[in-house]
């Protein structure tokens, strides 16, 4: 095609002239229309004070009330002639920005992919390590996560930006303790207000310890990008469990040892007035310091393992309020019926009436002895392996025509179905958020442009992009 003709040469020359002119055009803007950004080498982020007209909806993030832009976002905005980045009180040129922003974390390919997609109009955000599964989104766990993140500080930001807000932590502690006191009021019906207050103080200290543990656990875990949502929930559940446990410990410790009671009682004078006021509302007692002698009062141990029935002896001193008279000497309370009682719905009762399971006594005994589901399953398994054996059904296995499933193999529905199956099915390994993270993580989450896009709740990305060379 190239024929070395003069006219071709002229056309090429004209093309180059125009190209040079277009490439040399400067990026000019009114000073007030530029967004002012500050680059810091330590954080490798550009901080802006006032957001621009349009880009803040899709780019940038907030940390501790300050607005930041990632370096690739800042570079893109500089090329768009929207942002002016200052460093050391001098404005940065685009070449300078390339020199400073590009580094081991931000390669040229990374920026080019980002800029290419942004120029096409997509909303491109750096991939965040945590992804809420569909179930987690259904139960609202991701919103809870976000709330916790905001309170504790995002673990993904650098240490320079995180600021532990002690006021918020204290509020958290108070929140947990309030729910603990509520539980306390439910349990203890025969309790003095001082006792409640004193126990609160001890619990408060223990709670504080457990919350501190939980916090430190979280920040430890938070260093890892792959923190699953279940981990956060677990750590919080642990803290609540810990506080509940120390509650039980306090109740058991009160009856035998007297000195302890006195010391805890003394502590109660110094407790937070908030707690004492709350417990006053709950139990209705007045704050009397010398009315009762705790050495003579025996409190029932609700937490002890004395079986289903809690026996309460009538005590010599009249602890019941007002004109209530105790008739019996010993009161029996069915633990299941009185503690953690759910409000029975009519339809539930009806349904329970209809579903009458067969009275298999041997199984019920294991049910009564086990404290939790895993123990019960173990009991069941033992019972089955003892009772469901082939030799117990000799009449079935005597002939040539035998059952497809042997009793020993009937461990679960799946096992039985497995025995009956002709075609083997393959099972996908269950999706476990605690499993090893995938070997290659995406770099960007890309969303199609839409007006309803919210940075705080972007939703599932339309595409995920990995930048490779």
């Amino acid at each position, binding site marked *: *095609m190239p024929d070395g003709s003069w006219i071709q040469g002229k056309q090429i020359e004209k*093309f180059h002239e125009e*190209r*040079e002119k*277009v490439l*040399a055009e*400067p990026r000019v*803007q009114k000073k007030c229309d530029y967004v002012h950004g500050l680059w810091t080498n330590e954080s490798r982020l550009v901080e802006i004070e006032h957001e621009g007209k349009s880009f803040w909806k899709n780019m940038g993030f907030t940390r501790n009330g300050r607005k930041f832009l990632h370096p690739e976002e800042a570079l893109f905005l500089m090329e*768009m002639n929207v942002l002016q980045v200052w460093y050391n009180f001098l*404005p940065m040129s685009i070449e300078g920005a390339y020199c400073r922003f590009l580094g081991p974390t931000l390669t040229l390919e990374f920026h080019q992919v980002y800029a290419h997609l942004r120029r096409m109009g997509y909303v491109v955000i750096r991939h965040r390590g945590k992804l809420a599964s569909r179930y987690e989104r259904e139960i609202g766990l991701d919103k809870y996560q976000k709330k916790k993140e905001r309170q504790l500080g995002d673990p993904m930001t650098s240490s320079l930006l995180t600021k532990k807000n002690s006021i918020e932590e204290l509020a958290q502690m108070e929140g947990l303790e309030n729910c603990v006191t509520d539980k306390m009021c439910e349990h203890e019906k025969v309790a003095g207000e001082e006792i409640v207050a004193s126990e609160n103080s001890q619990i408060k200290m223990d709670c504080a310890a457990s919350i501190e543990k939980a916090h430190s656990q979280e920040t430890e875990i938070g260093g890892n990008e792959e923190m699953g949502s279940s981990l956060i929930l677990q750590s919080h559940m642990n803290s609540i469990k810990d506080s509940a446990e120390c509650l039980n410990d306090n109740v058991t410790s009160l009856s035998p040892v007297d000195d302890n009671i006195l010391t805890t009682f003394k502590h109660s004078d110094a407790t937070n007035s908030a707690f004492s006021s709350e417990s006053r509302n709950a139990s209705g007692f007045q704050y009397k310091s010398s009315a009762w002698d705790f050495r003579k009062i025996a409190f029932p141990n609700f937490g002890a393992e004395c079986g289903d029935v809690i026996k309460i002896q009538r005590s010599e001193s009249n602890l019941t309020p007002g004109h209530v008279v105790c008739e019996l000497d010993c009161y029996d309370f069915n633990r299941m019926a009185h503690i953690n009682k759910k409000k029975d719905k009519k339809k539930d009762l009806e349904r329970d009436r209809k579903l009458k399971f067969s009275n298999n006594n041997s199984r019920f005994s294991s049910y009564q002895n086990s404290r939790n589901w895993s123990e019960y399953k173990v009991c069941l398994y033992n019972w089955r392996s003892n009772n469901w054996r082939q030799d117990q059904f000799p009449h079935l296995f005597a002939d040539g025509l035998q059952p497809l499933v042997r009793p020993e193999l009937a461990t679960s529905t799946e096992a039985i179905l497995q025995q009956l199956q002709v075609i083997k099915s393959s099972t996908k390994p269950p999706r476990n958020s605690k499993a090893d993270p995938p070997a290659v993580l995406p770099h960007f989450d890309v969303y199609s442009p839409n007006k309803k896009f919210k940075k705080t709740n972007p939703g599932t990305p339309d595409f995920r992009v990995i930048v490779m060379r």
Partner: protein
Amino acid sequence: MFECVTYNRMSFDRGKTTITLINGQCFVWNSKQARFLREELRIVGTLCGSLPRAPMQNTHLGLPLQLMPEEVTLLLEKGLAEVVENTEDVITEEMKLEYKNKEKKSYKRQVELYTRERQEEIKRKLPQIIAGKKAKRNKVLDERRKNGEIIDDSEFEKEIEMTVEDVGIPTLQEASMLMEIPLACDPSTTTPVLVKWTYPKSDKEVLRYRVFRDLWDKGHYLTSGSKFGGDFIAYPGDPSRFHSLFIVVCKPHSASISGIELITMGRLGTNVKKTIVLSSVDENDKLCYTSLQWTGIS
């Protein structure tokens, strides 16, 4: 068909082309130099920034121009360029003051230019302005006449004397001053430092550069081959005007090529109407090229 372009049109008064090494990649930040590279030296490169006049599109990109490492080595060998790295100078109070002064000067200059431009515009439009003022005055007089006042007709005909100075010009606020995001580094605050360029090192890179150099010497324009799955794309003339003819694939001379690979390459070349050129360096250190053309598919 191919001619070696001689360096006659543009002189070397601008000196060597400056290539900036940033994070392992080479860039050219000057449009004149970019044009020179392409027009005179047949070094094409790839533009990888956004264009100032049309930033939100991907078809036409702007500076900086990214160069392939082979291109850089060629330029260095020919002594036509130098590879530098920008080192930041320590920012002194002097520099900050200097910048502020520059800004102030620019502001003053802008105010000057702005007032001058407005004055010229007013001068041009002065008859229209006068006519407008006259019409307004006449309208007011008409209103008064309607209200019962007796106004002489000559009032309507009176001319308005106005000069350019009488028309007010608003002042240019400092906030509305125009500022620029410069493309290249400010030479007063950065010092370029020459960098040792160590490409090519491995056997693969050496082979690639040999092939590149040879084809360049033969007069082709060469660009990166990632668009068509090869090492280079060879154009007979400027890429803006001509389609490429060859997809250059560099292979070591002793390497075996499976049948599937041949089919892949043949298929690819045929579908895009280009010839695959298998290039290698043989035992006698000579470059040999094998062209693939698949006639099976029409």
